[in-house]
């Protein structure tokens, strides 16, 4: 199986499995689960996955006697552009509540396999449908295993337990909460704050003056939360590092 999971999607020159590349990918996957990722980093991580998945689907379909053209990653997913990992990102997109459309624009049918599919007779189409569904499911499992994703998720779950029990994190969480309370936001955690704001936005009419005002508040709250979170980010990093040294 071709495996090329380095920092770019390109270098895919032989059929060997590079354990270092897998470890690197696993670390990146873990990091984005725990700390989030910038839209660029997230797109890279997901593109590597999707490229592998599409190749796997094509191989599986070929084994079933069908031609399948791998889709490009941007035909399968679309980042919203929300970036909670930087102050700048928060200033631009807030928490992604009022700043992201309820649904992003959807392209016209853009699957190159459709025209080939339409040339099949009805019975063959039915067989193709079954094969594609099976191959999509199988490929998810195959590629996840290849890239070490189950291990990354398990590590993230372990890290989360450690975080929840870390005294320094608990203290820093209180610091964050007190800091936010001083500027009028009463929430124990940022997740609670986002949930509360989301429910509030849900009561507003889209495009109204109130919704515009909310958007401004959301951006301000997202930045304020970042500013109040210095100690907490440090504590989280330390807690994760102490309990989940990657690949050791």
């Amino acid at each position, binding site marked *: 199986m071709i495996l090329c999971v380095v920092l770019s999607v390109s270098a895919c020159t032989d059929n060997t499995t590079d354990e270092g590349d897998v470890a690197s990918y696993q670390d990146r996957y873990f990091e984005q689960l725990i700390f989030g990722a910038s839209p660029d980093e997230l797109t890279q991580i997901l593109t590597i996955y999707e490229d592998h998945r599409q190749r796997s689907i094509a191989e599986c379909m070929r084994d079933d006697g069908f031609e399948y053209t791998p889709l490009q990653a941007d035909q399968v*997913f679309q980042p919203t552009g929300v970036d909670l990992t930087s102050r700048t990102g928060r200033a631009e997109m807030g928490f992604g509540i009022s700043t992201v459309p*309820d649904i992003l624009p959807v392209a016209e*049918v853009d699957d190159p396999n459709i025209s080939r599919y339409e040339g099949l007779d009805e019975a063959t189409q039915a067989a193709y449908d079954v094969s594609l569904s099976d191959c999509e499911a199988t490929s998810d499992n195959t590629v996840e295993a290849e890239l070490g994703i*189950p291990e*990354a998720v398990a590590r993230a779950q372990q890290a989360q337990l450690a975080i929840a029990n870390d005294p320094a994190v608990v203290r820093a*969480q209180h610091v964050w909460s007190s800091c936010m309370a001083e500027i009028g936001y009463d929430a124990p955690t940022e997740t609670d704050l986002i949930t509360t704001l989301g429910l509030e936005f849900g009561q507003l009419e889209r495009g109204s003056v109130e919704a515009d005002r909310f958007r401004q508040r959301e951006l301000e709250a997202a930045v304020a939360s970042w500013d109040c979170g210095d100690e907490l980010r440090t504590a989280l990093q330390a807690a994760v590092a102490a309990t989940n040294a990657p690949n050791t």
Partner: protein
Amino acid sequence: MRKLVTGALMTVMLSAPVLSAAPAMAITPGTGCGTATGSRLSTASAQSTLQQEFSPAGTCYSRVVIRCSNGTQYFGSWKKLNISSVKTCPSGTFIATKNGVAFADWGWQVGS
């Protein structure tokens, strides 16, 4: 277990997905392809199916759309009448919510 979440920590088992979502609505409302309906299969998966087709056979496709807690919108494969389009969020993530409603959507478009 108390949730301890801040900054960019928006991860695996946290109970409150943070990104935008909306009640079910058609992706591309219109006439000619009937109705696509869908449902959530789990916290991370959803499916949709085009159930009626009024236009000439072979021209209508539907697919499910989900928004996941990693801030990404995913599309299931285009499927014809009565064939389910299924999509699952990446491992460790789940379908995001907004206003307490899961963001899973479905609809149809006319194929080329």
